[in-house]
């Protein structure tokens, strides 16, 4: 494998890991909001 291969692999992996974590947080938050009335939902804005 060339240097570029390791670099691309590393950056892709980082992107996937971060996106995966954000996605998991998002899904769990969405699920949690379904169980709560609006005044207990905390701040739900993502961006």
């Amino acid at each position, binding site marked *: 494998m060339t240097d570029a291969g390791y670099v691309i692999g590393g950056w892709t992996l980082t992107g996937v890991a971060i996106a995966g*974590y954000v996605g998991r947080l998002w899904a*769990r*938050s969405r699920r949690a909001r379904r169980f709560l009335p609006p005044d207990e939902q905390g701040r739900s804005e993502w*961006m």
Partner: protein
Amino acid sequence: MRVATGGPGKAAEFWARRGTIVLGGLTVASLAVLVVLGLFVSDPDYQQGDAVRLMYLHVPAAWIAYLAYGVTSLASALYLWKRTRSPAWDTLAGASAEIGVLFTGLTLVLGSLWGRPVWNVWWAWDARVVSTAVLFFLYLGYLALRRVPADPAVRARRSAIAALAAFVDVPVVHFSVEWWRTLHQKGSVFNRELNPTIQGNLAWALLSGVFAFTCLYLYLLERRYQLAVMEEAIEERALEAAIAERRAEADVPPVRVPS
């Protein structure tokens, strides 16, 4: 957009919401800048060539791991100290530790991917690498401890003590390259002379990485904290509902009284 119900917290709430939105935007923008600077604009290193581009993720990830565990320890200490005790500190400690574990894992994997082309090995049993792996498992244990169902106050106290005990390893990781002879290079920014040994546009790429990851950390921390607050509220509601149910059962007069 939903507006807070009013009262003194209204303005703070409004700005906190704005803060989250600004932080999210800043994170995405700075990550984009990092990709451009790190992958395209910056020059290859005079020795390592293109492999150095892994540093722009590896070093910021390690920095976030330190930062996250630092926040966890601070929050745990504030929880343990009676004058500042608040369940919010415990929630914050847990949220921060989870992100810390994510970034410690990333640090290890990225370090391994970087080590193969530049050291010629995937893994070296040197002090920096091993102490980082130990750090990963210490906080993995901490998270496992947090997940065990228990009385919230008891769990918070246990977790806080475990977090402080685990933090001992952080300085060991950081100074391992100074104290001991390792294959791992010494700190390139926070070294003993506080003299960054990274030059040219490589330094800008690393700086943008540190900035982007710091924004990302703060954003993730805020999101994780809000999630934890909501999940705690759900648990509380479930508990209240269960108690109300038992109450209701007790209020029903017994159908048949045994003689």
